[in-house]
């Protein structure tokens, strides 16, 4: 079994001083080169947890976070951490495909350019490799200068994945990446997720339990801000220890 890529220790998070905590005492590992799925009913804190892992919650002004989040043993909330560098190492794909209103090529090139890539041939190479990894190269190679919005929803989401991996992150966070897609596009993204774990550590939120079962190695079940149970996906889906987990996966609530 691989070592932990990211670790959270007693993570508490609340959106404001008076709000009830959105995350309560979450302690878990995310193992390197594996897919970890987060399941649980809507509003249980899955997105909140994911956004703690790349500090996207920094934009919530009154948010309070306690506990620790480690990336390769380094506390990402410690003052000397460069947040932009952290976000490059821990990439994110969002629920709705959100390509920039630029061309396909410029979307993928955005991250590398932020990092200072100037040489067009280097950028071309990054664009091709990223689109290949995201399974979009064959469809996009002849229209790299077309607007990203001319792609279908499923293609746009794969473009967003290509854009995220263009900066060579170590971890890829995906927040319900298929919830806006049709079944065929969903199947393609799921296939991609399984391939991505070869090179990346993937953490994926899904409200679809079949999806979690199909793509993940480890599954974590959240309920009302608490991590109820986590473990190997086949164990969670066949012999969960916690009654609440069993109730959820057998469809008794949520």
């Amino acid at each position, binding site marked *: 079994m691989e070592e932990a890529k990211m670790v959270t220790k007693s993570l508490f998070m609340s959106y404001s001083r008076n709000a009830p905590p959105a995350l309560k005492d979450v302690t878990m590992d995310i193992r390197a080169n594996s897919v970890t799925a987060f399941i649980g009913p809507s509003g249980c804190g899955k997105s909140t947890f994911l956004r703690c892992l790349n500090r*996207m919650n920094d934009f919530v002004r009154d948010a309070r976070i306690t506990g620790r989040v480690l990336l390769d043993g380094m506390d990402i909330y410690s003052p000397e951490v460069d947040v932009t560098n952290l*976000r490059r190492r821990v990439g994110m794909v969002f629920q709705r495909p959100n390509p*920039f209103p630029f061309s396909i090529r410029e979307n993928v090139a955005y991250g590398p350019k*932020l990092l200072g890539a100037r040489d067009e041939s280097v950028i071309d190479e990054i664009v091709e490799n990223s689109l290949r990894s995201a399974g979009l190269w064959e469809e996009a190679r002849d229209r790299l200068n077309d607007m990203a919005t001319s792609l279908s929803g499923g293609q746009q989401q794969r473009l967003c994945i290509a854009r995220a991996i263009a900066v060579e992150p170590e971890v890829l966070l995906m927040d319900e990446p298929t919830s806006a897609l049709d079944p065929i596009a969903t199947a393609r993204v799921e296939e991609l997720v399984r391939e991505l774990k070869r090179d990346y550590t993937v953490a994926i939120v899904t409200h679809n339990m079949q999806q979690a079962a199909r793509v993940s190695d480890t599954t974590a079940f959240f309920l009302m801000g608490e991590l109820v149970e986590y473990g190997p996906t086949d164990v969670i889906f066949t012999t969960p220890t916690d009654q609440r987990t069993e109730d959820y996966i057998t469809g008794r609530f949520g």
Partner: protein
Amino acid sequence: MSIYLLRRAADRASTAALYGCMALSAAVLGLILAFLAYRGVGAISWEFISDHPRAGMTEGGIVTPIAGTVQLILVSMAFAFPVGVTTAVYFNEYSRGGALTKALRLAVRSLASVPSVVLGLFGLAFFCVFLRFGASLLSAGLTLGCLALPTLITASETALQNVPREFRDASYALGGTRWQTIYKVVLPSAFPGIITGGILCVGRVAGETAPIMFTGAVFFAPGFARSIFDSVMALPYHIYVLATAGTRIDKTEPLQYGTILVLLALVLGISMVGIVARARLRKRL
């Protein structure tokens, strides 16, 4: 059943009223344009738009005020566009709603409600006298820029607010800094909207008389302004002069309506260019 019929009647009546009002506004606009065209079209000729005024402005053309108005637009926008967009970026992207922002917003709102003649007197006192720019293209352009600022700021802010959150999230998640996100994603996405705001302002700037009559527009200039410290003729002021200062009304009245037509064409032309540019930008973005 009767309630249903009643509702349908009410629906039809309100639809008819809507169309009626629309037709009325269109008719008013059409009437104004037709009237101006009827009175002015006789004066339009190549000579009219390419010659300087002659013989105490009872003859010749209006190329001097046309050029002056274009110069005024350029100077005012060179000032107001960067200042306005920067202010909007500050309001929308940086400020956290503190005391400074509140004060600045209040200032902008007040500026929007200042009558243009008061703005003209401010321009005279501040740009012409205090900053010693004199009655010049520069002073008049800056005064017009002040006039354009509130509209430009509001339009830019709206355009910035309309940039979807998702674009910013995507940029930040790729390791973009705030400035990179604004510069590379937010501003380009907002640009078509900002351009629209700019066009509206140009229309107003081109047509205003009061802000320029004390600050740099002159009754008559022997030729084009060659430096920003020269005074200029301008179309709206020229119209005002022709309408009020002439003794040979029989000769100046056609010229006056011709000038009005040219001003209208200029403003509409700029709007067209802007609209086309915006459509292009939208398509490209």
